[in-house]
């Protein structure tokens, strides 16, 4: 395995909670090259031959195993598009941890566009965690444009946790999912933007089978002069249930545009959306001040809790 420097190690910790080489299957991508890979008896990771990226094959029935595929970038000016395809066999139950950390100390923009496709077999269960993090004091931007496509077969369940708290200047995230009968998708997105950052998050979830359900919830904070757009659409084509929620705090000159969308094409599709945007409630700050915190400390506690 290639030796990682301190910055790369720090990025790995931020995006994948990794201090050392992880247990189970993994592939660590560093500055556009593989810095280490391990397949296991049930999880095979192979490089794509036509484009940059990986194929991850998870055998049917694989239980309680994990796959880590973090990406770190520390060279200014790198731009890459990576295609990772996950084939998750029937009845498998796995945790997949992705994530990208960019440290840009230079003047050129660094960009990683990860396109992840998930083919989730019957009754399989997947927990997917994706964290984004940026650091470095260069003037070059840190750009991440993740694309996620999820294809869920009958009775499968996918839980996605998407987190971007710090340092990414520009993001356009697009997530699409289609669900067969009794499949279930839960998305929890947490986002904080600051400075002049811009983050756009678009979801289109199509519930095709009877009993399919989706719950897409975004919690976000926009500070300074940043801008966010949350555009979540759920399409119900059968007797199904869908819920989207955008719950946001704005501070300073932050701006947020929430565009919840529902499309019911079946009389038994039950779809709900909620969206709330506002500044931190004054009585929340006062309550914490009566416990001895300063106004700034109170705000920090409220935001930390909100984005937990």
């Amino acid at each position: 395995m290639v030796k990682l420097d301190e910055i790369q190690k720090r990025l790995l910790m931020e995006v994948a909670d990794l201090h050392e080489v992880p247990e189970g299957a993994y592939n660590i991508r560093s500055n556009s090259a593989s810095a280490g890979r391990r397949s296991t008896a049930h999880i095979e990771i192979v490089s794509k031959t036509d484009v940059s990226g990986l194929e991850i094959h998870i055998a049917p029935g694989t239980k309680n195993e994990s796959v880590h595929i973090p990406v770190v970038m520390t060279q200014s000016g790198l731009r890459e598009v990576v295609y990772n395809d996950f084939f998750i066999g029937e009845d498998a139950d796995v945790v997949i941890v992705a994530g990208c950390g960019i440290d840009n100390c230079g003047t050129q923009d660094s960009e990683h566009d990860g396109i992840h496709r998930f083919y989730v077999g019957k009754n399989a269960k997947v927990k997917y965690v994706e964290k984004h993090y940026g650091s470095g004091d260069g003037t070059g931007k840190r750009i991440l444009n993740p694309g996620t496509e999820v294809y869920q077969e009958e009775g499968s369940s996918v839980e996605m946790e998407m987190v971007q708290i710090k340092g990414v200047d520009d993001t356009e995230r697009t997530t699409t999912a289609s669900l067969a009968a009794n499949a279930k998708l839960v998305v929890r997105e947490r986002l904080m933007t600051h400075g002049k950052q811009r983050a756009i998050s678009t979801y289109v979830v199509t519930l095709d089978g009877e009993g399919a359900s989706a719950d897409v919830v975004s919690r976000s904070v926009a500070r300074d002069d940043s801008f966010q757009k949350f555009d979540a659409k759920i399409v119900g084509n059968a007797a199904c249930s869908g819920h989207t929620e955008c719950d946001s705090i704005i501070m300073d000159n932050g701006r947020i545009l929430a565009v919840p969308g529902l499309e019911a094409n079946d009389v038994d599709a039950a779809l709900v959306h909620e969206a709330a945007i506002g500044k931190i409630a004054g009585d929340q700050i006062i309550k914490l001040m009566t416990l001895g915190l300063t106004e700034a400390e109170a705000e920090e506690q409220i935001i930390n809790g909100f984005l937990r």
Partner: protein
Amino acid sequence: MLELKQISFDVTADGREKEIIRNIDLVIPDNKLVVVTGPNGGGKSTLAKLIAGIETPTGGQILLDGEDITALGVTERAKRGIGFAFQQPVRFKGIRVLDLIRIAAGRRLSVADACRYLSAVGLCAREYIDREVNASLSGGELKRIEIATVIARKCVLSVFDEPEAGIDLWSFQNLIEVFRHMRETIQDGSILIISHQERILNIADEIIVIRDGEIVAKGEKDAVLPSLIGTPEAVRRCEGGTIVEGEDALW
């Protein structure tokens, strides 16, 4: 000991100035439980907020153990040991009961220590410690957690603004016990409760009656309480009272 000297508070509404509190002189002695009561709109909650620093008086002085704290903000007063339980406890998305108690205690309490504060207010600690202080909690649960945060601070002056408001009768019974226990174990501190409830007044050392922004009666409980029971105001409030302000409500 807290002293209020000639405290006034005016607000401007519809272009007209209105006096909410008028020249109040008041002493809350150490190791006493003092209950402030009086009709709605009389200025009781405003008085509590003036003490906690949430509102700033338009006239007068507030002294805590001899120090003039009139110009100090909420945080500074909290750091000097003034605790304040809100009439309507605040909800927070994502902040857990454990987090709130740790913030209140000002240190990283162990879970077991934090649980003790919840048990003190009659909550089964294990069920609540990891829950978020959000809309999933009932009014009575929130109220007790609010009180636990004040107890955790070990204040020199704990102020409770209408602890009975918005809770069910069953929780209220427990609440009385909580305050009775606090009264019995009071040490180097004092307790100020804003309340309409006869049963809370009953455990007071002293009672202060505020009406139209002024103190109209104050003294030892035994001297003041009999004069409140059966007053025309009490009868009127009882007739229109809700379950919580029900049979024992004086105003």
